[in-house]
C-alpha cells in the first residue's frame, strides 16, 4: 500500500529534527519523520553493566565505524586526522553526547566584520535568543545565570556540582585571574518535568540510563508525538525526489526490511547532521541538479568544521575523585576572542572534564608511559588513579573549502547507498591555536597545584561537532540555504542541522543547532502562505 502523502517530511530524528518536529506540529500540517535508527532503551545502556567501560568503547562507541550498528553507515576517514563521530537512532547524536550546552556568542555571528576572516552569518544572536531560552526549557538545562562572557540568560535549573576536580581546577583560574564560569549543561541538577536529577553515573557518552542527561528521544519526541507527529524508524532515505516544477515532492527510502519505498510530501526538511545531510544532497543528484541537490553554489559538502580539540592534564598529590557526568563542570572563555599578539585569529574555550572509570584511567596513564606492566604496576597506578585532572581546549575551526564531505566511489551502507568520505586538514591558524592552548592549559593546571602536566595537542577521537557543509547566507552563489534554512535552489526544501553553520565559534554547537531548528520552524509558520510563490 502506498504511503499517505504528508505535509512536512523530516529526515533525521536527532537534535535538530526533534526540536523542529515539535514546533512545526503547531501548523496543523501532517508531520512525518523518517529515521534510519531505532528507539534506544535506557536499560540497554552500558552503565547498567559492570563492564560499562568496555561497552562504551565498543558497541556504544561514538564512531559508526567501530560500533557498526545495523542503522549505521560507514564513513571513509582515511584522509582526516580527526575521526567523525555520531550516533544514528531516535535522538541522533544526543544519545551519545556529553550535553555540554554553551550557546554561540554574539560576536561568533560576525567573524568577517570583526576579524576579517570567513563570513558573517545572515542572522545574529538576537534572532536566536528566544529560541535558546525555549530550547533550554524543553531540554532541561542546568547552569548559573550571569556569566560575564555572555548576554544575560537564566538556565532553568541550578548548576551541577563541580566535584573535587572542578573545585581544584577553579583555584588555578582564580590565581591567574582568568575567566571561568559553571557550564550550561543539558543535564538536570534537580527533578524536572518527568525526569529525575542526575545521579553521577559517569561519562554520559554511552547513553544515560537514568534519563537525567537530555537526549531528544526523552525530551522533544514524547511531546512531539503527543502533538500528532509520526516517527517512522528503520527508514533510511536514499534520495530526495523532485516534481516537474523542480520542487521537492518527497523521498525514496529503504524500510526496515530493505524494501524501497516512496514517501510524498509538500515540504521536505533535512536534519541528518553535518555529514549525513551533504551525503543525502549529493546522493540526490539528478539531470536537473547534476552536482547534487541544492548545490548550484558548489558548496554542498564543503567548509566542514569540527572544532579541533587539545587535551591538557595534570597530576596532583591529593586524591581527586572523578565521579559525575563527563561533559564539563566549568568553562573558560579567557582566550575566546582574537588577540593579534597570540599569532592566530579567533580563539578557543577551555572546558574542565571529569575523570573516566578505572580501566579508562589505567589505559590513559599507560599511554602516557606512567603505568608499566610487571611488579611496579600497582604502585604506579595508585599514583595516577584519581590523582589527575584534565581539560579540553575546543578551538574555532574556520571554514575551508578544501575540508569536505564527498561521496566515496566504492564504500556503501548496507542498503548499497554511497557512503560519505571526509577529507580534512588542520589549518595553520588552528595549529597555532592548539599549541597556545596546550601551553596555557598546562599553566593553569600548575597554578591549581599540578606537580606534573601533560598534553595531547590534537585529540584524534574528537570529531563530535559536524558543521558548515551546507551553509546559510543571503547570496545563492556563496551559500546553500537562506537565513531561515530554505535551500536557495529548491523553495520547499529546508536544512536545519549543523550543516548550515557559517562559522562554528569555539563552543559546542547543539544549543545553537536546536535554536536554529526552532527559528526555522517559526519562520516557516510565518511564511507558510507564500512558501511556494
Amino acid at each position, binding site marked *: 500500500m502506498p504511503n499517505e502523502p504528508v505535509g512536512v517530511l523530516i529526515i533525521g530524528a536527532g537534535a535538530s529534527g526533534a526540536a523542529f518536529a515539535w514546533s512545526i506540529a503547531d501548523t496543523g500540517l501532517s508531520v512525518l519523520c523518517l529515521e534510519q535508527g531505532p528507539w534506544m532503551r535506557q536499560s540497554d545502556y552500558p552503565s547498567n553493566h559492570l563492564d560499562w567501560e568496555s561497552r562504551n568503547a565498543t558497541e556504544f562507541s561514538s564512531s559508526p565505524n567501530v560500533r557498526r550498528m545495523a542503522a549505521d553507515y560507514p564513513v571513509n576517514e582515511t584522509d582526516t586526522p580527526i575521526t567523525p563521530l555520531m550516533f544514528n537512532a531516535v535522538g541522533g547524536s544526543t544519545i551519545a553526547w556529553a550535553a555540554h550546552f554553551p550557546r554561540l556568542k554574539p560576536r561568533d555571528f560576525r567573524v568577517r566584520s570583526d576579524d576579517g576572516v570567513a563570513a558573517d552569518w545572515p542572522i545574529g544572536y538576537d534572532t536566536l535568543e528566544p529560541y535558546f531560552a525555549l530550547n533550554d526549557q524543553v531540554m532541561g538545562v542546568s547552569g548559573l545565570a550571569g556569566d*560575564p562572557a555572555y548576554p544575560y540568560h537564566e538556565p532553568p535549573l541550578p548548576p551541577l556540582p563541580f566535584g573535587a576536580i572542578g573545585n581544584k581546577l577553579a583555584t588555578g583560574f582564580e590565581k591567574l585571574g582568568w575567566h571561568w564560569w559553571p557550564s550550561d549543561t543539558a543535564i538536570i541538577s534537580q527533578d524536572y518535568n518527568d525526569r529525575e536529577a542526575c545521579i553521577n553515573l559517569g561519562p554520559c557518552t554511552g547513553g544515560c540510563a537514568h534519563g537525567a542527561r537530555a537526549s531528544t528521544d526523552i525530551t522533544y519526541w514524547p511531546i512531539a508525538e503527543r502533538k500528532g507527529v509520526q516517527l517512522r524508524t528503520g527508514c533510511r532515505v536514499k534520495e530526495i525526489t523532485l516534481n516537474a516544477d523542480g520542487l521537492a515532492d518527497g523521498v525514496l527510502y529503504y524500510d526496515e526490511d530493505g524494501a524501497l519505498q516512496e514517501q510524498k510530501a509538500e515540504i521536505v526538511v533535512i536534519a541528518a547532521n553535518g555529514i549525513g545531510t551533504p551525503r543525502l544532497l549529493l546522493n540526490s543528484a539528478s539531470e536537473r541538479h547534476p552536482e547534487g541537490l541544492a548545490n548550484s553554489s558548489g558548496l554542498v559538502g564543503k567548509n566542514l568544521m569540527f572544532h579541533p580539540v587539545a587535551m591538557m592534564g595534570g597530576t596532583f598529590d591529593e586524591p581527586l575523585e572523578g565521579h559525575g557526568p563527563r561533559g564539563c563542570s566549568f568553562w573558560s572563555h579567557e582566550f575566546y576572542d582574537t588577540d593579534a599578539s597570540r599569532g592566530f585569529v579567533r580563539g578557543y574555550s577551555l572546558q574542565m572534564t571529569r575523570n573516566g572509570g*578505572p580501566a579508562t584511567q589505567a589505559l590513559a596513564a599507560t599511554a602516557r608511559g606512567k603505568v608499566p*606492566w610487571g611488579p611496579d604496576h600497582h604502585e604506579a597506578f595508585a599514583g595516577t588513579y584519581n590523582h589527575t585532572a584534565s581539560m579540553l581546549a575546543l578551538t574555532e575551526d574556520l571554514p575551508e573549502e578544501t575540508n569536505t564531505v564527498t561521496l566515496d566511489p566504492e564504500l556503501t551502507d548496507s542498503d548499497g547507498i554511497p557512503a560519505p568520505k571526509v577529507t580534512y586538514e588542520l589549518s595553520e591558524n588552528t595549529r597555532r591555536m592548539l599549541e597556545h592552548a596546550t601551553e596555557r592549559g598546562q599553566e593553569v593546571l600548575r597554578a591549581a597545584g599540578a606537580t606534573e602536566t601533560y598534553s595531547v595537542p590534537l585529540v584524534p577521537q574528537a570529531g563530535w561537532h559536524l558543521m558548515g557543509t551546507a551553509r546559510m547566507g543571503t547570496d545563492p552563489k556563496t551559500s546553500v540555504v537562506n537565513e531561515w534554512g530554505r535551500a536557495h535552489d529548491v523553495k520547499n526544501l529546508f536544512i536545519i542541522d549543523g550543516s548550515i553553520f557559517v562559522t562554528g565559534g569555539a563552543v559546542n554547537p547543539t544549543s545553537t543547532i536546536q535554536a536554529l531548528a526552532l527559528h526555522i520552524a517559526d519562520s516557516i509558520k510565518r511564511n507558510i502562505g507564500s512558501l511556494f510563490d
Partner: protein
Amino acid sequence: MTSDTTSPLEDAALVTALLDTLIPPSEDAKLPGAGTLGLGDGVAAAIASNPRIAPPVTAALEALLHQTPDFATADLDTRVEALKTIEAAHPALIPSLTTPLYFAYYQHPVVLVTLGLPGRPPYPGGYETDPTDPELLDLLRSRAKT
C-alpha cells in the same frame, strides 16, 4: 608446551602466567594477579577474535615458549625477564594485550572494591560527588552580570 596445532592462546596455564606477569598481585596482596583472578579465558578470547592483533600476539607467544618453555611454572622474576626479551623483539605484544587486559581487570568487582568503588554497575545506585565549594560560588555570584 603447546602442540603444533594448538594456539598458545588456548594454553590456559601459559595465559594465566602471562597475565600474572603483566599485573602481578600487589605487594600487600589486596589486589590479586590478573591471571589468578581468572581473566585468562576472556582476554585470550578477545585477542583471538581480533584478526588484527591475533597473529602478532600468537607469534610472540610462540617465541616466548620457544625461549622459555617452562614460562607457565617459572617464578615472577624469571617471567618478567623472559617477557622483557620477547617485548623487545615483538613490540606489538604488550600494547595488544593491555587493552583487553585492563578492561577485564579494572572492571572486575574484586578490583573495584579494593579501589574503593562499589562492585556493581553504575546504574541504578549512582555515585556521590563533591558539591561545588560554596566560597567559589559566592565569588562567582559577586561577579555575575544582572
